[in-house]
């Protein structure tokens, strides 16, 4: 039988994950402000405009507002603060 050997694990150390809850949902979007966040990926602006048009046609009671961060990939606290201050919900896309 082949000899058993001991070797090191090559992986680094992951951080501890702290559970976080999702935000409370609203029963309906009617009469609410929905932010459509264009994350600045190529063509995301066109996607968000189509999403805005969809809401205008199918759920006109929802007030949609398109908004953009200052940069792609980088947090924009000012933009988030604006969404938190007067938004009831948000859709962000298209990308990660």
């Amino acid at each position, binding site marked *: 039988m082949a000899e058993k050997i001991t070797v090191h694990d*090559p992986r*680094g150390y992951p951080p*501890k994950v702290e*559970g976080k809850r999702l935000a409370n*949902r*609203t029963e309906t979007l009617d009469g609410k402000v929905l932010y459509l966040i264009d994350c600045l990926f190529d063509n995301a602006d066109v996607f968000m405009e189509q999403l805005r048009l969809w809401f205008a046609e199918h759920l006109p009671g929802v007030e949609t507002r398109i908004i953009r961060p200052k940069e792609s990939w980088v947090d924009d606290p000012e933009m988030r603060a604006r*969404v938190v201050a007067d938004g009831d*919900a948000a859709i962000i896309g298209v990308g990660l």
Partner: protein
Amino acid sequence: MGFALALEQDGVPTIPVSTHVFARLAKATALSAGMPTTRNCFVPQPVVGRTPSELRDYIEGVDPVNKRPFMQCVLDGLTQPLTEEDMKGASFERSTPRFLEPDTEDNLRQLFIENHWTDYLPIILPTEERVEKMLKGTSKAADYVVGTMRPTSFREAWEFDVEKVAVNAVMAGARPDYMPVILALSASGVSARSSSTTSWASLSFVNGPIRDEIGMNSGIGAMGPYNHANATIGRAYGLVSQNVQGGSVPGDTYMGALGNNWAYTACFPEAEERSPWTPFHVDKGFKPEDSTVSVFFGGWYTQSGFGPRETWKDKFIRCLTATDHFSPPVIVMDPLVAREFDAMGFSKQSLIDWCAENAKMPARNYWDDQWVTTLIKPHAVAGVEPFASRLKAKPDELISIFRPEDLNIIVLGGETQGAFKMISGRYMGGGPGTDNKGNPTGLVDIWR
């Protein structure tokens, strides 16, 4: 995704929309953020290049991951009451053991492959004895924290110490006296296994006395498989990156469409003694007797040529404008080429300035690029120069595509031919959590 998770924490119900190829990545990102029930919705890939009516079809079509109408997913995600799982999120600790369970060599080799811990070339198994020997290549304690690394900016950063670097250096076949260089590369904070869809690699260049001390090759075939130190240091940096950052697994922690052959190994010394110009690290503020590493994030394209011949200006302009200009090139030239430019009266900086001044393309072409649009246009819109002026230019107007500070020159090669390459390479490093703050070039000597 990061925005969406932050907004949820701020109390705003949010739906992140991604294309379907990112489904596993989205799930993993949400899990590691402690919000595994994040209500992701998906449209087909690609979005880039699709017309408004095609994108409207996506919106009115079926979410290819959730298998329900896309808008139903969105509306339900924003309005359906929270479940118990939504309310608590997921807290957990993950530990990485120092050693794996003892097993036979064959089984352990198979385990490393199955766990995606290798680059699929044969490895040296990191036994305790081999790792101990590798650790003798540095005076740093095994548990000294080198830094953190992540596959991309929105992923969680994993921490790693000197021993983890040694483990991966053993796997790569490196020798203990290479450890200071491998540690300096690892401490750059720049991953050699970026998960970007653009299939980046990280090319690195070594300057100073360490090059000769460990027998690196800056001569014939310097960028090829002809030197033990060059080959295994670059490979070790890659293995360190993929393993200490939590993986580089296609579809999960790696999304590069094409992949990148530079990712196997790409570490080269500058031929300082045969260059007519000052060494790269001296240009960046280090002393000639310092040993350093400099990382260039790129490897996406390569242009090449000979010269400088009579029409070198045309050739350089063709090469520079044929680059994918969101990623500036590091120009690697044989000493024959560098000395010829020097004889023509060019310093390294004046040649860089010439390249920046003459590399131009119509504004239409400059902006018609997905990454220029994504990464640079927001700065232009915000009024940051020179990007704002580039955005104001008429579509046919020729605009400069690089700033002098975007371009770098490294001299190496065997002088068997006057050859040069322009390789995608953004000079990077020295980020938060690294030991070489403020200068992308890192000092090797602190890791001796």
